């Protein structure tokens, strides 16, 4: 279900922990699985974590599927619902809001024609609101697909970013 490359990455994570504590690698393993699905998936449904993928990861780590499932649902960066090719998460917490975070979210929402929490009809973009990303000095900030942080996202910078995300 996962590529040899993803499994090798998971093995590297497992090696960080004592031999009897493979469970510690579950967060990283789910992240690696999600990243592969995001990169390979052609539809919103194919880009998120499913019970089958979670069970596969759990079996690989020799832990109970429910233990992995609990983790996948507790931490909010794991996509458990269908998601666009580009998931954009804007920080709108207070420090960012004081420097354009709320305006950036509004601008994106208007520009993409979707409300926060929605995915565009062509399955390309999902827009989400996020909590403090530890980058408030660079506000407005947004995350693309969980791993790429974009700083100082004025309307012009957002236009440019969207043009890059083809």
């Amino acid at each position, binding site marked *: 279900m996962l590529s040899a490359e993803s499994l090798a990455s998971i093995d590297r994570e497992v090696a960080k922990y004592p031999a009897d504590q493979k469970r510690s690698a579950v*967060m990283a393993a789910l992240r690696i699985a999600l990243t592969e699905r995001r990169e390979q998936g052609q539809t919103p449904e194919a880009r998120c974590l499913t019970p089958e993928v979670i069970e596969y990861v759990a079996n690989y780590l020799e832990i109970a599927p429910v233990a992995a499932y609990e983790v996948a649902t*507790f931490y909010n960066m794991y996509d458990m619902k269908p998601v666009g090719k580009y998931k954009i998460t804007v920080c709108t917490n207070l420090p960012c809001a004081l420097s354009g975070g709320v305006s950036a979210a509004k601008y994106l929402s208007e520009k993409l024609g979707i409300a926060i929490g929605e995915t565009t009809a062509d399955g390309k973009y999902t827009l989400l609101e996020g909590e403090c990303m530890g980058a408030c000095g660079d506000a407005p900030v947004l995350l693309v697909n969980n791993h790429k942080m974009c700083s100082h996202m004025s309307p012009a910078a957002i236009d440019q970013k969207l043009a890059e995300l083809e």
Partner: protein
Amino acid sequence: MAIFKSGVIFEGVDTQDENAWRLAAYEARGGYVALRKILAAQMPQDEVIAEVKNSGLRGRGGAGFPTGLKWSFMPRSFPGDKYVVCNTDEGEPGTFKDRDILRYNPHALIEGMIIAGYAMGTRAGYNYIHGEIFEAYEQFEAALDEARAAGLLGQNILGTGFNFELYAAHGYGAYICGEETALLESLEGKKGQPRFKPPFPASYGLYGKPTTINNTESFASVPFIIKDGAQKFLEAGKPNNGGTKLFSVSGHVNRPGNYEVPLGTPFTELLEMAGGMRDGKKLKAVIPGGSSAPVLPAEIMLGVTMDYDSISKAGSMLGSGAVIVMNEDVCMVRALERLAYFYHEESCGQCTPCREGTGWLYRIIHRILNGEGRPGDLELLDSVGNNMAGRTICALADAAVFPVRSFTKHFRHEFEYLIEHGKPLVDHKWC
């Protein structure tokens, strides 16, 4: 943007240089001299801990607990595994200093953790990094690789027979994992739900083994203390408030960013360094220590110095050193509503007073903001808060209550006006 005055952690770091984080650059700044000194002299563990105690270093993660004292709680003679764990799960709204330590000076943290490992007799450590800063996590992994390749980490460090391994772990979106026992649960591959204390991590930590947890900035201060001496660190700040401190200044200033200044620096000076108020607006209020710290009105703030004691005397806390600056255009009801939403969203849900209480706080403030407040709502906020604070497993519930109490105390008229008139006193503009 990151701007630093001279200090302990960012002394000599050129943030414009894209190789500033690398081992070679760190060693050119005097990096790993402290570790070499300790290992060459086989400095007794007690002496290392005494030096950290004498420096007056207080934990930079929020609570300000003396670091050396915490280290002395570790049962060093415990025969089995023991751990040191670094908390880089920086998620307290307003705080963005630890990310810059990882980006520009990760080896200071690595060296600090190796020294901590030596002092407490532990063989392994983990650094748990906030989910949203994946790029910083990857770069930290690269810094660890450099240290391993140079013989500074792993087996037989620098040929002295001392062993210490250090690994990075990556969170995936849960503020609560900044709480140390939730962090340990998360490292064990579980939901990040805080544990009952006691037992404290020093006796029952990671995998049930003795564990010491410190903030990134705390560990990163240690090489300086060993290299230049406890006295020099202490003198960089003021008594009982040793050292310099990173302040993350955000909000309505001209130059948001990190500023490393001596503890005891007047707030007015810090504000000036951050370029002063944006658009020449008037200062209205400041949250001086991250969103969980009580807000202070401008009149009080303009008289404080930035250190644990002065801010606590003024009725707030230094916390994580996140300074959130608000100007006259901010409606305090709206600002508080945003924070209340955050705590409601991030409660881990295992204690009823917190799970239910954070929801109540948010809903009441939300309805006041929407002009649907009822007479008695402020008293209701008080009573909900009183049923939360101090009655839960961890301090998130208190963290949710502090802002509510302080906003409704210092800016009560704005809340009363909204309840009475159904519209805000201040015509709010975010920026």
